[in-house]
């Protein structure tokens, strides 16, 4: 019997995502770091972001459509508000977070933007908030004699 895997059978015939959509998603990732001021240099995350987007589409080919739609949603927001205000609307509009999603904006916020926030924090975005480790971050091993990969208790004198 077929094992449950992250590779959806329908994804095998899926057309590749177009470069403009890739770029729009990457810009969204960058804008998350800009809006919250937690990732000043996103470039080192780029290929891991690519792995993430690819694996979302392979897990569920519907993501390809969600990503294409997100590109258009963001383009429309930018046309209406300008670049930075557009992302501010996407990130903060409470209506966009109403579940279950029904509008393109709601789908973009909940399935694209919010997931990239989760990814961004786990890749290293959390570091700006004062911790050394975070759920989803490859903190490193417990190597005897080396500093722990997380903040440790200071023994009282």
């Amino acid at each position, binding site marked *: 019997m077929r094992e449950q895997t992250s590779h959806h059978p329908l994804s095998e015939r899926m057309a590749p995502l177009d470069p403009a959509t890739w770029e729009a998603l990457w810009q969204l990732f960058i804008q998350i770091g800009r809006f919250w001021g937690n990732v000043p240099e996103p470039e080192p995350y780029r290929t891991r972001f690519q792995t993430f987007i690819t694996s979302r589409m392979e897990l569920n080919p519907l993501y390809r459509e969600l990503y294409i739609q997100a590109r258009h949603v963001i383009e429309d927001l930018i046309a209406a508000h300008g670049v930075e205000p557009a992302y501010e609307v996407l990130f903060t509009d409470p209506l966009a977070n109403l579940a279950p999603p029904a509008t393109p904006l709601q789908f973009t916020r909940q399935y694209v933007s919010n997931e990239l926030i989760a990814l961004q924090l786990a890749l290293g975005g959390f570091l700006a908030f004062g911790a050394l480790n975070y759920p989803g971050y490859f903190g490193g*091993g417990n190597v005897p004699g080396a500093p722990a990969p997380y903040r440790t208790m200071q023994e009282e004198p």
Partner: protein
Amino acid sequence: MSLPQEREQLLHRLRTGFLLELGTIPPYMMALLSIRAPHNRVAAELIRTVMVEEMLHMTMVGNVTLSLGGRVAIDADHVPRYPLSLDFEGQRFRDRRFDVDLAPLSSATIDTFMAIEQPDGWGAERQAMATAELEIPGLTIGDFYRQIVQSLESMCREYGERAVFSGDPGHQVSEDYYWSAGGKPIKVVDLETARRAIDVVIDQGEGTTTSIYDGDHRQFGQRAELAHFFRFREIHYGRHYQLTDKPHAPPTGAPFEVDYTQVFPFKPNPRPGDYAAGTPLAQLNRRFNKAYTLMLVQLREAFGGTPRTLYTAIMNGMHGISEIARQMLALPIPGDPDGYHGAPTFEWVEAR
């Protein structure tokens, strides 16, 4: 020469070393994956452990590169191609004057693997070659790495260790990035650690002519493990070594099954044209090469200042391509007169 010039020369050699180590992984991987489970389990395990240690060697070379403030080069022009000819500056390595194929497990494949890992000064054939040394210039792999150490030593004498090892150690792949192998990455911060890192690469591969064991138990305080060459000799003879066995004598320990018929046959060094457009094998091969390329890009990043990317390169990349390769190996090429199955072509394709 100035320090920057000498450094650049050395980095050039290290780039060759990195590609050399990287280039051995796909042949080992394909021999391993070609085995039809549940047959040849012992051989599979032996090949697997060698493959994992080649990843460690690649890491060591990457760390030495980073310690000098360099970056490894992996791009469309710097990727292994198969058949892999192991050469340096247009010259074949003296102990590598043969091509390495992507091929299923066979007696010939194991012979090639033994040749790849053959210790310096092994056997009569080698001695014959040594006499021809004057006529055939060229290096052994061991010499190649030893020369790197010598260059480091001379640079340190001239410019001081601090000036030579100017890279950010935080960019290197440290002990806690690595798992499941005999040995662990060594952070290179000075001449001493550079020597230790390179010694691991030389020792694990070649062992020594006086011992069948690698130097790990001295380096890492672990139980003595067979050097790669002798692990392949075990497969060659279908028999384990015993602690008392001598290097030049065949192993005398417990026998195990080696059945070269229990493999998925595939055409050595497959090409994309082997799979008709639109067929499942063509689709799988395309997926494989995209994933392989992304993995290579992530390896470049991991050894380019973002070591954490190594996790994704291995957990997603290495595991992902292995699975696709397994699927291809299970599929016969429709109508193929030789009864070949599919196998990935290991090619660089533009990312995305």
